[in-house]
């Protein structure tokens, strides 16, 4: 851990190590992935200093083989357990792996994720089947949200993925999804 001995004082009131600790405390208490801009606003430090504190914190957690990890997800930073300990944690929380989505819903979600904003008829075109109940399920699970209406006949509602989608699928942002073209090579 050479980090905080080498780097110089942050631009704000806090030393690098203080800043790291403050950031750690905030990420810990936050229920949701915490965006950098919220931390900037809250601590009144430079964005760069905070980003560097976050990066350092994250690599320190992984270097010391902690049971926890600090990572960027859904446009914010989050502290969570590492996957290695899922058995112990699951047993402790007595949680079953949460109900997974049906194949139909997953397919519908994939179409929405890659084609957003997308309307119900457009989803039908790709999937070849009505997807109403899947869309309802995805809305209920807050994985998708409405994205306004499309300016065509009937002004159909358009759908896109939500922030919860990013969180549940462990994505920093949509650009982290493999490109749909990558799947082309795999198709026969």
């Amino acid at each position, binding site marked *: 851990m050479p980090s905080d001995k080498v780097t110089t004082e942050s631009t704000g009131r806090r030393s690098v190590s203080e800043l790291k600790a403050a950031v750690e405390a905030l990420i810990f208490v936050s229920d949701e992935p915490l965006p950098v801009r919220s931390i900037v606003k809250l601590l009144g430090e430079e964005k760069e200093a905070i980003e560097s504190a976050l990066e350092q914190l994250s690599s320190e957690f992984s270097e010391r083989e902690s049971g926890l990890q600090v990572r960027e997800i859904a446009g914010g930073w989050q502290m969570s357990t590492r996957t290695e300990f899922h058995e112990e944690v699951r047993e402790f929380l007595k949680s079953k792996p949460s109900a*997974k989505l049906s194949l*139909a819903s997953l397919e519908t979600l994939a179409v929405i994720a890659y084609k957003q904003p997308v309307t119900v008829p457009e989803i039908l075109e790709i999937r*070849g*089947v009505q997807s109403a109940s899947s869309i309802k*399920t995805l809305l209920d699970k807050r994985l998708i949200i*409405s994205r306004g209406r499309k300016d065509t006949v009937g002004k159909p509602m358009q759908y896109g993925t939500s922030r919860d989608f990013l969180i549940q*699928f*462990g994505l920093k942002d949509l650009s982290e999804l493999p490109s*749909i073209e990558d799947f082309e090579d795999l198709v026969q």
Partner: protein
Amino acid sequence: MNDSETKQLEFDFKNVQAEIVSESSDELRLELGEFAGPLDLLLYLIRREQANIFDIPIARITDKYLSYIKMMERLDIAVAGEFLVMAATLIEIKSKMLLPQEPVEEGEEETLDPRQELVDRLLEHQKFKLAAESLWTRATVEQAVFTRGTIETDENNPEISATVFDLFEAFQKIMVRHKEQIELEIHREEMSLAEMLRNLKARLKIEKRLNLTKVFGEMGSRRELILAFISVLEIVRTEAVALFQKNTFEDITLELVES
């Protein structure tokens, strides 16, 4: 078709096709869910016939497709409209393929293969099936990650972060509630509020404690339910009673306070 939602994704993705199970040589069972649409059935048939997706033997595949649909009808499975639309498409392509090809003249564009559009759709569909697979993998990994438990500083708040759909749902619920209330006013009959109030007061005297969830559950009609509710409010207002609820969403108990 709601059943497909309850079927959990616990099987090997790679082997998933439209669930067509052969029970004997010619008796086949086709399980229909949202997943097994006409495109899935086509892909399954193409694979089974070991045909090339870029050069589909359209006559053979169409015959197979139609025989599946006939079989579904024979087995009294309601054939979804999409399957029939696809059947029509296949027949159309097949007939186009039978037309003699016009010789391609110099400088003239080659006529489009009648199968092209279908092939494009199949390829597109397959891409998204693979995308769904990769999402599934991601979700599985993420399910092994946990965030911290609730902490003291977090008052366990009843607040929810809302979307337009929550807004819409809230509105719909109110409207349903509202409608029921109006209907109630129209059907004013039978038991009066005074009677209900008397009944509940008497019961409380004897039982000392009333589980309100239970009491409300006993009410035969919406009207009675509302009367009971109003009566409880009246009792709370006028009598020496207290309302108890251990936890949010738990049953509420009405208790006589000894004076």
